[in-house]
């Protein structure tokens, strides 16, 4: 599919490129789920009782379908976009007109999202993550596949300042997508196991144990117990399934635009994070994964998450990988080796954090602050010092009793908000605050 022809009616200055339209099938794709739902309902009714498909249904169809088509068409006609040298401009709306200007310098990441039904028709949605935008600032849904990829390259080029934009015709202005180098592909088997070795296994084990105990006490109690456990099991299973579907075929690649993450079985998503946009990296090691030596890596950029659930569900840089590989990748995306070793809190910190004290730690070098914590899941947070927004030392009354204090390094991430060096010796925390402040200042200027 090619992009629809540009509208020449639009007022364009000499330097600005012409306005463009979304994919012509956009109304169908956007209303696609409704159409399918409607067909299913009508079909079921028809199967059960063919006479019900009489006049009312026909009237509904005769009125509803053209009306929906008209609304879809008009809103498609009204939606247009263009990319100037500094901005993405989007105008939309039928009754309420909306005109949006997204400064490209503030773009943090660009995602190409392909829901299953859009993939079938060769269409994709382009989402821009912008600082301060709770939701994706400017979702362009839907574009043709090729157009989405070309536009992504163009936006990333302009936002990084690698290409001076604005001049020339569309053909020259939108270069072909650049080649990428695949770093990691997560195989399916470990992914499936890693998802199962979590809430699903725990839920199943608890259910089996409870059933056995109930059976020993009274056989009559078994059935109600299982009936009660079923919704929980289903919920856990559906969460696991969603994770599998979303993270299936996870591919990490490096492209000239930045880091590229592709994943998904039915709905696919291709995220591009330009270099130097990562605010925080978190490495998770759940208890049940420990004997396999697996970890999960999550990243956050400013602007990601906080919006729809769809975005909150993502954030993985690697859904599952051996520790060594994960460490290598983290060092790579953060542009430099991570500091090794860690400084533990004083032993008296066990009075404040009896369970976590064994895992607490912090280590600092010129570019990164690394903190660890966690009880069941060992969590390591890596904060690039150049991304630190503010530093805090906090001390609660019980901490003061034991002369402890915690240092927080805040970043602009939405889900991963920075690192905490918890329960340090109070003087250490103060010294660390001074030291991190100094190094962060140096890192910002670098």
């Amino acid at each position, binding site marked *: 599919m090619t992009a629809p022809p540009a509208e020449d009616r639009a007022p364009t200055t000499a330097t600005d490129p012409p306005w463009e339209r979304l994919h012509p099938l956009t109304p169908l794709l956007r209303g696609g789920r409704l159409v399918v739902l409607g067909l299913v309902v009508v079909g079921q009714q028809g199967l059960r009782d063919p006479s019900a498909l009489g006049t009312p249904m026909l009237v509904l169809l005769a009125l509803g379908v053209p009306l929906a088509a008209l609304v879809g068409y008009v809103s498609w006609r009204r939606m247009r976009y263009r990319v100037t040298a500094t901005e993405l401009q989007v105008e939309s709306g039928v009754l309420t007109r909306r005109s949006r200007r997204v400064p490209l310098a*503030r773009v*943090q990441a660009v995602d190409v999202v392909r829901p299953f039904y859009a993939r079938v028709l060769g269409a994709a949605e382009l989402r821009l993550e912008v*600082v*301060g935008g709770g939701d994706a600032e400017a979702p362009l849904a839907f574009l043709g596949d090729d157009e989405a990829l070309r536009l992504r390259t163009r936006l990333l080029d302009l936002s990084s300042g690698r290409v001076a934009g604005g001049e020339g015709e569309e053909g020259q202005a939108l270069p072909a997508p650049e080649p990428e180098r695949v770093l990691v592909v997560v195989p399916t088997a470990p992914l499936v196991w890693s998802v199962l070795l979590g809430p699903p296994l725990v839920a199943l084990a608890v259910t089996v144990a409870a059933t056995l105990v109930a059976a020993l006490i009274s056989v009559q109690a078994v059935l109600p117990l299982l009936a009660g456990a079923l919704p929980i099991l289903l919920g856990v299973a559906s969460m696991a399934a969603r994770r599998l579907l979303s993270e299936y075929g996870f591919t990490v690649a490096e492209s000239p635009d930045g880091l590229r993450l592709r994943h998904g079985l039915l709905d696919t998503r291709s995220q591009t994070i330009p270099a130097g946009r990562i605010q925080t990296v978190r490495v998770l090691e759940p208890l049940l994964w420990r004997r396999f030596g697996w970890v999960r890596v999550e990243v956050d950029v*400013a602007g990601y998450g906080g919006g729809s659930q769809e975005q909150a569900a993502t954030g993985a840089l690697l859904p599952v990988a051996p520790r060594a590989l994960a460490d290598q990748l983290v060092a790579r995306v953060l542009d430099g080796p991570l500091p090794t070793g860690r400084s533990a809190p004083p032993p008296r910190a066990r009075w404040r954090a009896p369970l976590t004290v064994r895992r607490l730690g912090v280590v600092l070098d010129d570019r990164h602050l690394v903190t660890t914590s966690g009880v069941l899941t060992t969590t390591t947070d890596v904060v690039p010092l150049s*991304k*630190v*927004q*503010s*530093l*805090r*030392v*906090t*001390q*609660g*009354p019980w901490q*003061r009793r034991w002369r402890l*204090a915690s240092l*927080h390094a*805040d*970043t*602009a*991430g*939405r889900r991963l*908000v*920075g690192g905490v060096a918890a329960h340090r010796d*109070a*003087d250490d*925390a*103060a*010294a660390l*605050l*001074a030291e991190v*402040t100094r190094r*962060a*200042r140096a890192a*910002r200027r670098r």
Partner: protein
Amino acid sequence: MPDAVTDVVTGQPDAGWRRPDRRLLVLRRSTVWGLVALPGVVVAAALGVLAGPAEAVAALLLAGSLTGLLLVGVQRRWAAWGYLEREDDLVVRRGVLIRRTTVVPYGRMQFVDVTAGPLDRRLGIATVTLHTAAPATDAFVPGLLADEATRLRDKLAALGEARQAGV
């Protein structure tokens, strides 16, 4: 009263920490008198009429001790506030029960708010709040005289613009 944390931050004790104005303390104290002491006296009077002198005295003692405690707490909280404008960053410290020290580099400031409620305005004080791109940043200073609030805001805005670093 610089504690261990702030000492190390500044490198020298009492290196020009500024405080909220005394009017903030006046405001907090009057809030305690108005919301705790006064209702306490009213309740005690009502008890004296309805129940008896013993109950009235008990209520008075209770209200009195509560008021005393709160007055001490308010005083200490007020005294704990401090802010320090350094070359590259602003340091804010606060809290008695939970002590917090926050360092915000000027270049990280996204915007500065000056807010004043109706009581604040009567007393001529305002709160200055610093916002960065990080949701966890919690730097604000209450009880600044209007002139000082404006000065601080303008200074922070100017320095923030001069040293703005990309997110």
